[in-house]
């Protein structure tokens, strides 16, 4: 129990770890999925899993927005970025995600005007400053990030910025969870729910998990103690034969979410019939596109987007990692052909990706544990 010393309240951490031991049935194997990449990061960094009994397994989920973008969409993005009049803007992580023939960073090196932005509002400013060019924002992310894109588009529309558009790849969290719960190859006992997504959507959208699938879910904060406490809450529900949505992160997450953010989402976006997820395939009603009122700002209607479907490279097992079927280190190319410096798959790109998180901290944790 070495890592617990780094916790804000190490005593509480130890006490919780001890309590968890008494909560589990010794002969039973528990699989608890943490949905959000932020939690994966905390778990590896602070060795949360090392504090759990051997029969409690944390399984990583699909909640890393960079990780779930399929290769075909990266190729589409690069095709738009190569249009001479276009200034293509995106978050830093997306520049390093491999498409079938290189990354946006490669396209930039070959002359495409690709610029990293911190915020969609930075992209909008670039559009205002470059009236002679077309500025496209590569929008990615779950409901945490989508309201920011929505509010930016609302402003672009109000100010009639004619040369701004959005290549929308926003996704929603509930459909992939439903897909995982329907999948036969994964037996999960409960979920650690995403903290930041829930800030926007609230806890209510997760009620289907206990209602339709009989599993507990606990919305969790990001401190190691938060995650540990949330695991304890899931296991306690299981021990007591309860299953419900509980909110460990009440200090930030209101049960009904953020009404302003939800209004912005409803105003700007509508659900796509289906959207492709890396490794998970097409999931119906899981992606967002711009609503008819924002069609003028939709890069997909302004530009020919090839829309090719590209199979993941053979060596890549990101799909299995995103479904929690394998652990990062079980991928054949992990740490050899695929590293954060030269990623093959998306899970190695973002620091929230399970492979990158494990690469950066997990191995260290294992070594420290052995010592």
């Amino acid at each position, binding site marked *: 129990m070495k890592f617990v010393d780094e916790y804000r309240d190490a005593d509480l951490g130890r006490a919780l770890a001890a309590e968890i031991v008494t909560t589990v049935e010794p002969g039973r194997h528990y699989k608890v999925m943490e949905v959000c990449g932020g939690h994966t990061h905390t778990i590896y960094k602070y060795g949360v899993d090392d504090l759990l009994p051997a029969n409690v397994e944390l399984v990583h989920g699909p909640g890393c927005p960079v990780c779930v973008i399929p290769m075909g969409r990266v190729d589409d993005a690069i095709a738009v970025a190569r249009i001479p009049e276009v200034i293509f803007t995106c978050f830093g992580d997306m520049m390093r995600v491999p498409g079938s023939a290189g990354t946006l960073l490669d396209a930039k090196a070959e002359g495409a005007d690709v610029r990293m932005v911190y*915020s969609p509002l*930075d992209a909008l400013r670039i559009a205002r400053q470059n009236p002679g060019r077309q500025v496209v924002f590569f929008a990615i*992310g779950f409901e*945490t990030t989508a309201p*920011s894109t929505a509010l930016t588009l609302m402003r672009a529309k109000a100010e009639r910025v004619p040369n701004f558009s959005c290549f929308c790849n926003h996704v929603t969290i509930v459909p992939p969870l439903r897909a995982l719960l329907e999948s036969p190859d994964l037996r999960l006992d409960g979920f650690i729910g995403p903290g930041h997504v829930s800030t926007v959507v609230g806890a209510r959208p997760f009620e289907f998990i206990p209602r339709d699938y009989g599993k507990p879910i606990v919305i969790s904060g990001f*401190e190691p103690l938060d995650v540990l406490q949330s695991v304890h809450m899931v296991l306690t529900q299981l021990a007591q034969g309860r299953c419900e949505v509980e909110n460990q992160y009440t*200090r*930030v997450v209101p049960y009904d979410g953020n009404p*302003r953010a939800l209004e912005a989402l409803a105003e700007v976006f509508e659900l796509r019939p289906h959207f492709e997820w890396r490794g998970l395939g097409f999931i119906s009603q899981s992606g967002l596109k711009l609503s008819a009122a924002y069609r003028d700002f939709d890069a997909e209607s302004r530009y020919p987007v090839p829309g090719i479907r590209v199979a993941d490279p053979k060596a890549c097992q990101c799909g299995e990692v995103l479904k929690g079927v394998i652990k990062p280190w079980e991928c054949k190319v992990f740490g050899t052909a695929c590293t954060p410096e030269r990623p093959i798959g998306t899970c190695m790109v*973002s620091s929230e990706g399970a492979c990158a998180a494990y690469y950066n901290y997990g191995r260290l944790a294992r070594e420290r544990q052995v010592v």
Partner: protein
Amino acid sequence: MCLAIPGQIVELVDPVNRLARVNVAGVQRTVNIAMVDGDDGGAVPGDWVLIHVGFALSKVDEAEAQATLRLLEQMGAEYELELAELKASVIE
């Protein structure tokens, strides 16, 4: 891009577009605060907010903000990168 960083609101700079200047780890930057325009009067100078891609996502109390900052500081490289990206941001 997944991080949410705490910042303290310094002043409202563009009431129409809901932009406020915030202090984030000693750097002052402009962010949009429309999402925290709740029924309780919205965010005012002195309030702490969690900032994600240039938007205040929610209000937090100071203790929560400090705890989150400490957690982020311990992340090292990723936090530094996020801060560098934030510093390069010019929202107007």
